[in-house]
């Protein structure tokens, strides 16, 4: 049984359809990578799965609970089993890195402070930031912020880990480290991960399955090899990094000429 199951999801912003009848199943213990260009609806789908926005129609069930129409208490319960690392990290700037990670542990569990300190240290050690707990988020570099965000997402030992663009804006070495971290987490904790990205090398490194999103629809869902072998023109274009709108020089020249002529006629 899939742990996350999206059915016929339709999302509209001001009448503009962003997601159009989307279906997606994510199995427990797999890393699903959502691949797609800018404006393809990746982030929208993510926000839907996190229950941050209401869809126009369709359903999303996480661990058997339909989060589009469940009670607030059920949504809270579902959310406690999901760890999320946002694109910008979204660490609370008013708290130190340690306190950021300890926040959910302190408020959602009855653990003793000494145990919480230990867990926080362990989570930071997992992402390689064991010595940086006392720092403030503003003192961390971009890559460290993202890793700290992953540590915070792991705080409550979630079954599902959601990562929004983990490698965007990072240098290749740090991005690769983060990829290794995700694979490590999956192998050690049997965590289910949903990773949104547009970086191909990273996607093919970590994914068990890949879902290609384009204009609010899923073009292809499959294993790495299936996606690589796909003959769908849009998938191929994405994988081969082929540009979409090439500048057509004669057309531009003709347009400019027409513009100049119209100005001359007016003067």
């Amino acid at each position, binding site marked *: 049984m899939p742990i996350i199951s999206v059915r016929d999801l339709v999302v509209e912003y001001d009448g503009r359809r962003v997601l159009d009848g989307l279906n997606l199943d994510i199995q427990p213990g797999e890393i699903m990578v959502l691949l797609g260009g800018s404006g393809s609806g990746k982030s929208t789908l993510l926000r839907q799965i996190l229950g*941050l926005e209401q869809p126009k129609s369709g359903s999303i069930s996480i661990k058997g609970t339909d989060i589009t129409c469940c009670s607030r208490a059920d949504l809270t319960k579902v*959310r406690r089993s999901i760890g*999320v690392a946002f*694109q910008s990290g979204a660490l*609370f700037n008013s708290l130190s890195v340690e306190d950021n990670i300890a926040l*959910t542990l302190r*408020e959602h569990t009855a653990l003793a402070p000494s145990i919480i300190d230990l867990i926080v240290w362990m989570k930071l050690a997992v992402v390689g930031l064991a010595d940086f707990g006392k720092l403030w988020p503003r003192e961390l570099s971009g890559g460290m912020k993202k890793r700290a965000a992953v540590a915070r997402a792991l705080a409550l030992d979630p079954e599902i880990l959601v990562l929004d663009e983990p490698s965007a804006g990072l240098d290749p070495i740090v991005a690769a480290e983060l990829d290794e971290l995700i694979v490590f987490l999956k192998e050690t904790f049997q965590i289910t991960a949903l990773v949104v990205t547009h970086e191909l090398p990273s996607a093919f490194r970590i994914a068990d399955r890949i879902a290609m999103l384009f204009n609010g629809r899923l073009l292809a869902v499959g294993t790495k090899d299936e996606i690589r072998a796909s003959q769908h023109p849009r998938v191929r274009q994405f994988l081969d990094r082929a540009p979409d709108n090439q500048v057509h020089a004669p057309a531009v020249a003709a347009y400019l000429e027409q513009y100049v002529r119209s100005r001359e006629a007016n003067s």
Partner: protein
Amino acid sequence: MANLLEIAGRETLSQLDYVGRLHIQLWATLRGMRMALPLVGNRYRWRAAVRQMLEIGVDALPMVALLAVCSGFILAMQGASELKRFGALHYVIDLVAVGFTRELGPLLTAIAVSGRSGSAFAAEIGTMRVTEEIDALKVMAFEPVEFVIAPKFLASLVAVPCLSIVSNFFGILAGGLFMFFSTRLSLPLYFRYVLSSIELRDVSAGLLKSLAFAVIIAQVGCLEGFRVRGGPEAVGRSTTTAVVRSTFLVIVADAVFTTIFYFVGKT
């Protein structure tokens, strides 16, 4: 003409929408405020509330005191220049005492707090929106209203009336200094006159007003923060709007309260 009507209609609707949102947020805050109370609530919210009280109240003390002293002198001197002609200089005491406890103390404090803390609320919450911290709170199963607004609201309700009392004291003290230098009236005697000229009703009316001002400042500041959409430039705009709107609403509310007290006091 049709265009004018259209603009008027749209403006009316948007203002009504604003008032509606303000009310929704106010009720949500009142529901969530139990969690910020000491003993019965969540101790982390109470701690946050105490921190806010220090920021809103204690940090503003020098500014509010100076503001009150200056205004006290102004009121005493302006009053004296007129009253002297009728040989009624001792009425300056009544003017300053009643003027400050009923009106100037709470109003000056509210304007100072709206500039200092109303804008800070909007900036803080607006930044949290831009950096996805509010979304992070939601997915970490926290209620943003309870987590962010309730402590600020509680802190304002405590700090603003306290500041008003300080403002009253310093304003009246300034009047006393003026009387001492102009007529050699000793300060103890001055304060005895003050106590005989003001009634408990004057003080309580002033404090009631300052409670209402606290509600306005906290709610408008937080709402402007939550209304931030888009990037960092929206945060700057929201802080300006927060100050302008809360100052405006404070003065409107003051007019309403003064009218009510005037007619109630008559009978």
